């Protein structure tokens, strides 16, 4: 079926199989492989994207369900070649090791900071609970989100 939806600010119109997931469409049709294919069952959070600003598992979202909606993937987080403050904080704090969870971590953290610019550490941990890191980098990841929150508040 034919659907149109916005990906990273750009309107896309394409034919999808109704049984395909948003994850498959992003990776295989649009070549946006920054969204990772992990458990494929809503457990690991590696496939997290923002749907109308809210984090969802793209592996659980059927493609037809996103018609006329807005999707933000990790490819759309940096603006004009400049890293988003969250991305820069992840780099500065060494919050990336293998990087497989990073897309999901960053997008979920963005949704949190959009909603609550001054979260506590425990709120950050709770929001990020749906995204699993197997390199055990949680401490640095939470540090990075807390630091990014400060940077975003100081930014003009």
């Amino acid at each position, binding site marked *: 079926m034919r659907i149109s939806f916005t990906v990273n600010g750009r309107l896309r119109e394409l034919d999808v199989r109704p*049984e395909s997931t948003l994850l498959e469409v992003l990776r295989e049709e649009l070549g946006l492989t920054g969204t990772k294919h992990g458990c494929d069952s809503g457990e690991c959070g590696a496939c997290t994207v923002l749907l109308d600003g809210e984090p969802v598992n793209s592996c659980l979202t059927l493609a037809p369900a996103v018609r006329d909606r807005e999707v933000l993937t990790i490819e759309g987080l940096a603006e004009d070649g400049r890293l988003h403050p969250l991305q820069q904080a992840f780099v500065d704090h060494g919050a990336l090791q293998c990087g497989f969870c990073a897309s999901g971590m960053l997008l979920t953290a963005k949704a949190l900071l959009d909603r609550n610019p001054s979260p506590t550490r425990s709120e950050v941990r709770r929001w990020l609970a749906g995204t699993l890191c197997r390199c055990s980098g949680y401490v640095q990841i939470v540090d990075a989100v807390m630091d990014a929150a400060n940077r975003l508040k100081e930014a003009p």
Partner: protein
Amino acid sequence: MLAGAARRRAGRFDPSNGCETMPQDSRGQRGTGGAKVRPFDYLIPDSVDEAIAMRLEHGDRSRFIAGGTELVVLMKAGKLQVDYLIELSRLAALRFLRPADGGLCIGPLAIHAEIERSPLLQGPWLALAEASASIREQQVKNLGTVGGNIAFAVPSADTAPPLLAFDALLRLRGPAGERTVPISEFFIAPYRTTLGPAEMLVEIRLPETGTHFGSAFCKLGRHHNLGLSVATVAASLKLEAGEIVQARVAMGVAAPTPRRVLEAESLLLGQKPNPAAFREAGRLVARAAAPRAGSIRGSPEYKREVLPALTERALGLAAMRAARGEGGRA
């Protein structure tokens, strides 16, 4: 149509509510391309009645889909095959939260993230917000719906115990018209409800609570009480002159369906809230429990050990909230 706290249950999905299944080993292989779902037609109704007509036409070859957090997983695992999926998630007529006659009307498509945050659910009906908050993670709470959680009827449906503790009324609409069913009569067996063919849950109504009404939801989960539930208890108490005049105690994941424990409720009537009574209520809840052996969630013995503690906690919180007079009209 699904939300929920229990993805791995897929392995025990009961197909008896009219879904074709395939042998377990023939599908759901995870490869680099991911599990492929058998093709189906995706139907987009413009209204509730059109959705019901579609379901009537296609019968067991079709299913309603809302958040998809259960159905998509089942389909990927090859446990469920349909020829038609009928989309409900965009029917605005089913997505609302609004005060009505002192009570609250909840559209079945309200997602858990909305229920968790709604100011309408921070007072007497806090147990429901607590249950939705406990349902897995942000990514799932933004998809899963309360209606899906109830209608799919997994034994672990986290929103069921609070709705039982509120005497929720479920408005069902089908080809023959509407009927209203108390939630205590809704669940029949795991994955089975009183919903007839082509019937749809269209509204969850919480009756007026009166003042000095409090509720709480307590859950033992596997990871910081988030996600997969081992056992759950919801309680509500109504106080008059410091005495309990109405009590509800409901347990989840402790019997084939979520259900109230009437013995525990009647024990509390006429008493002032006190730890000994709550302890006795907890004992009665554990005695009423009929947990399934072989569950990945916890052994029956373990569940019977934790149910009294969950009950005491839920009753203690409900009593404290009721005494603060958080009840009243929405």
